[in-house]
C-alpha cells in the first residue's frame, strides 16, 4: 500500500530501503555529512507548505531519515532544494537527480567536490527512495 509522502512512516520506509541496500554501505564508506532536502510548495498540486527532510548518514550507515523544521534542514552539510514537482519526478524515476541539478531543476548547496567523490553513494540513496511506494498529494 502506498505511503503518504513527507510523513514519518514514509521516512521510515525510505530508511528501511537504505538499510536493505547492499551498495549503500559500500559506496558511502567514509562519507561524513548530513543532508537536508527542501521541497518547495506547490498549492496547485496539493502541497501548501514547504517541507523539510533530514538524512543522517555517516560512513555507510543510515542513522535516521526524518521530517524536520527549516532550521535543521538548512543546517545540514549538504542541502538540496527544489520545487515539489521535481522531487516527485525524482521519486518516480521520471527524472535523474544529477541531471536535474545540471539543468537547474534542483539545486545543491555544499561541498561539491566531496559530493562528486560519493556520487554513486548519492545515486544509491535516491534509488532507494524510488523503491518506496509513495503517495503524493496530487496522485
Amino acid at each position: 500500500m502506498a505511503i503518504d509522502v513527507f510523513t514519518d512512516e514514509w521516512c521510515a520506509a525510505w530508511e528501511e530501503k537504505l538499510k536493505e541496500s547492499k551498495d549503500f554501505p559500500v559506496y558511502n564508506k567514509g562519507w561524513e555529512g548530513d543532508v537536508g532536502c527542501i521541497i518547495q510548495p506547490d498549492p496547485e498540486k496539493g502541497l501548501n507548505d514547504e517541507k523539510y527532510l533530514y538524512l543522517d548518514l555517516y560512513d555507510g550507515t543510515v542513522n535516521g531519515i526524518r521530517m524536520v523544521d527549516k532550521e535543521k534542514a538548512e543546517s545540514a552539510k549538504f542541502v538540496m532544494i527544489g520545487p515539489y514537482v521535481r522531487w516527485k519526478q525524482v521519486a518516480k524515476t521520471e527524472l535523474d537527480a544529477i541531471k536535474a541539478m545540471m539543468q537547474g531543476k534542483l539545486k545543491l548547496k555544499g561541498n561539491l567536490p566531496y559530493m562528486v567523490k560519493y556520487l554513486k553513494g548519492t545515486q544509491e540513496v535516491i534509488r532507494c527512495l524510488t523503491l518506496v511506494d509513495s503517495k503524493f498529494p496530487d496522485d
Partner: protein
Amino acid sequence: MVETNINFQLGPGAEEIGLAVMIKDLIAQNLEQNPHKVSDFVKLNIGVGLVVTDVDIEMTMAFSKGTLTVHPGISDQALIVIRTEADIVMAMSNVKIKFGLPYYFDETGREIIQAMRNGGLKVKGMILHLPSLIRLSRVMSVHP
C-alpha cells in the same frame, strides 16, 4: 609564497544553466581544497566547449590566465569540444590522477574509456591540444 589571483565567473545567461554554475563552483572549491592544482589552472589558456547531449546543455569554459568564465553555448574560441552524456561528465570529474595523468584503470576510468570506444564521448581538438586537455583533467578531477 607567491599569491595567485584566480577568478571564477559566469557569462551573461550562464546563471540559467545549472551545469554552468556547478562547474564554476566545482572548480573553485576544488582548487581551494587542492591548492597544488592552482598552477595548472593558471596555465590553462584555452576555450573548452562542453555539449551534454542527454540534458541538452551546451556551454563553454573559457580559461584565461587564472580566470574561468563559463558562457552558454559553444564559442568560436572553443578549441576543444567535449561531447558526451551527463554521467560521463561526472565521471570525468571523478577520475583519479596518477603521476599527473588521468587514471583509466579503475571503475570510473573504464567507464570513460568505454564511452570513448562506443562513441559516447567525443573530444574535438584532443590531439592538437592534448597538454591542455590533461591539465583540464587535473583541474576538474576532485581527487588530489
